[in-house]
């Protein structure tokens, strides 16, 4: 935009210089109009680039301080090519990274929080909601839907830390619960990518109850024999970790992600001790047996597809019917499996 304007200006200057003689022939009205235009363009150019505009083009790696071209960073799935630092990813980008192109079919897209407590701290909760929506471009802190991952059907939920700190209120709880129910109905695997600061204080006790609601739905889901994979990303804390995020059949963490129940500062204040540097990182959790694996982002989709495929009931196993044709099918692959 900026470049275009400067080119325009140069053109305008050239034109005016070149046609000085013609000026007299020019309509006075036109002359004023072009002068006005020139002024406007000059004003735009005078303004310095804002940090936001620089940031849109360049991003600095938080870890190695390398300056990265945003477009390159995006093609590398928001992972620093130099030091493998995993940037935070919003829900929309995450879906793009995990779901097969064009396969995501969103559920409950219009669901919005109400204000059950008419909560007011330094600002009204309703106002804070609008602000969060304006900043993130999302209605709520989670996007849920049905999709395909490398051709496998799956129910996918992605949380977005950029919206209200990814906090879980009634809507997040309800959407995750509905997604679980949808997955159960279709006998498809459930995948939830968590990124949250915890329960949403502004909805008080109802937020807390979402922990029980989602866990209760996951109990039924687990009983139905379907696969649930929980992915923990930077950062996952509080009520989300202490409910659905920790209930996966598999729990996968992204490298360097900070995951825990209580925040680091709270723990430091409680025990008055220095905590280890890698405390509550994905690698620390792996060391303490809390996650199955730490998978870097470029391998994530592949890993998911593999896990889903591994747990897909082979057609021969479903041999409840006494049909002759079924028996035939159930007999054959068992030998095939051995070879």
């Amino acid at each position, binding site marked *: 935009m900026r470049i275009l304007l400067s080119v325009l200006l140069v053109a305008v200057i050239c034109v005016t210089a070149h046609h000085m003689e013609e000026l007299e022939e020019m309509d006075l009205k036109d002359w004023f109009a072009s002068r006005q235009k020139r002024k406007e363009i000059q004003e735009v150019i005078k303004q310095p680039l804002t940090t936001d505009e620089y940031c849109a083009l360049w991003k600095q790696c938080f870890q190695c301080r390398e300056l990265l071209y945003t477009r390159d960073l995006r093609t590398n799935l928001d992972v620093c090519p130099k030091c493998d630092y995993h940037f935070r990813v919003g829900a929309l980008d995450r879906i793009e990274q995990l779901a097969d192109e064009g396969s995501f079919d969103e559920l409950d897209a219009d*669901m*919005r*929080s*109400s204000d*059950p*407590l008419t*909560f*007011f*701290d*330094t600002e009204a909760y309703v106002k804070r909601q609008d602000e969060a929506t304006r900043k993130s471009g999302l209605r709520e802190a989670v996007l849920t839907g049905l999709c395909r991952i490398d051709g496998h059907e799956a129910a996918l939920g992605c949380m977005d830390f950029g919206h209200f700190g990814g906090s879980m209120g*009634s*809507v997040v*709880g*309800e959407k995750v*619960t509905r997604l679980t129910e949808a997955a159960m109905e279709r006998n498809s695997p459930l995948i939830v990518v968590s990124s949250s600061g915890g*329960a*949403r*204080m502004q*909805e*008080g*006790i*109802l*937020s*807390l*109850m*979402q*922990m*029980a*609601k989602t*866990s*209760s*739905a*996951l*109990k*039924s889901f*687990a*009983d139905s024999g379907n696969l649930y994979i929980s992915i923990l990303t930077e950062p996952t804390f509080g*009520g989300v*970790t*202490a*409910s*659905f*995020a*920790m*209930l996966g059949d598999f729990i996968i963490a992204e490298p360097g992600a900070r995951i*825990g*129940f*209580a*925040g680091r500062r*709270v*723990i430091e204040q*409680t*025990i008055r*001790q220095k*905590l280890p540097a890698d*405390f*509550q990182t994905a690698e620390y959790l792996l060391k*303490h*047996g*809390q996650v199955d694996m730490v998978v870097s982002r470029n391998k994530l989709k592949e890993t998911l597809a593999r896990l889903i495929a591994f747990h897909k009931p082979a057609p021969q196993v479903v041999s409840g019917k006494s049909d002759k044709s079924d028996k035939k099918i159930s007999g054959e692959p068992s030998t095939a499996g051995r070879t």
Partner: protein
Amino acid sequence: MATVEKKPIPLEFEQPLAILAQNMEALEKQLSDNPELEGDLERMQDQYNSLKRSLYSNLRPIDHLAIARHPQRPYTRDYFSTWDPGWVELHGDRKGVDDGAMVGALLEIDGIKMVAVGTQKGRTLRDKQHCNFGMPQPEGYRKALRLFHHANKFHLPILCLIDTPGAYPGLSAEEHNQSQAIAENLMELAGVTVPVVAAVTGEGGSGGALAIGVANRILMLEHSVYSVITPEGCASILWRSNDKVSEACQAMKMTAKEILQLGVIDQVISEPLGGAHHDYQTAAENLKKAIVSQMTELMKLSPEQVRKDRQDKFRRFGSFR
């Protein structure tokens, strides 16, 4: 039972009442020498009673919080031993630790045999340290989980008493996966096929309280509180100030009455005037009656119905448009 022999320690908002009581005591001492003071004493007594009534009928949320945290408030062990002097305590998570903050018990109340768990705060300093000030470690939740499975196996109803500031936020707690311990309890407790009744007797602090609170019926004592975060935590995050605790209490709607209005709990149990610490027996009796009646109702349901009842209850929570 460890009944409080000592007088209840007055709370900050009870100071006017305490001063009046002191004056009355002084007057009473003079009464033997000056019998004409009897009228004054009577008048003072009337004044005391009316002040008491008006004080306790206009409690602010932060006053409820103060009563819920009163150091003399009856704790889980007090209730257990009032209800069933012969209660059997069960220890340990079977994986290496016995957490003092979580008490496990076999109880028989009015002929109903049940498995009970509850958080315990501790009275003396040593006791408090043993109970970690009522903040369970993951091992405490795993102990509770073991008992839930036991109850499910032997078709015994489950009773949970909640009085905790929250799950312990510490290094070892994180290392031993506090969040998984809570999450697993939420999930497993949702799935048991026996009746579960939970009662908040003091502080219901966040996930640490909910981990033993996924129940068919949730009761709260009149002055108890139940919240998503401690009001101190809420004030420091949202107001960025430690002296906005009162505002945070108000905004979060954490008192028994407000939570009943939100439809999250089923019943508010009345306490003796001034709080349960004024009269353990009455408080325990009131709570017992409610528990027994709720449990009797629930025991009429089939195992599948009980589970469905509980899961349906939690499925309904939430407010959205």
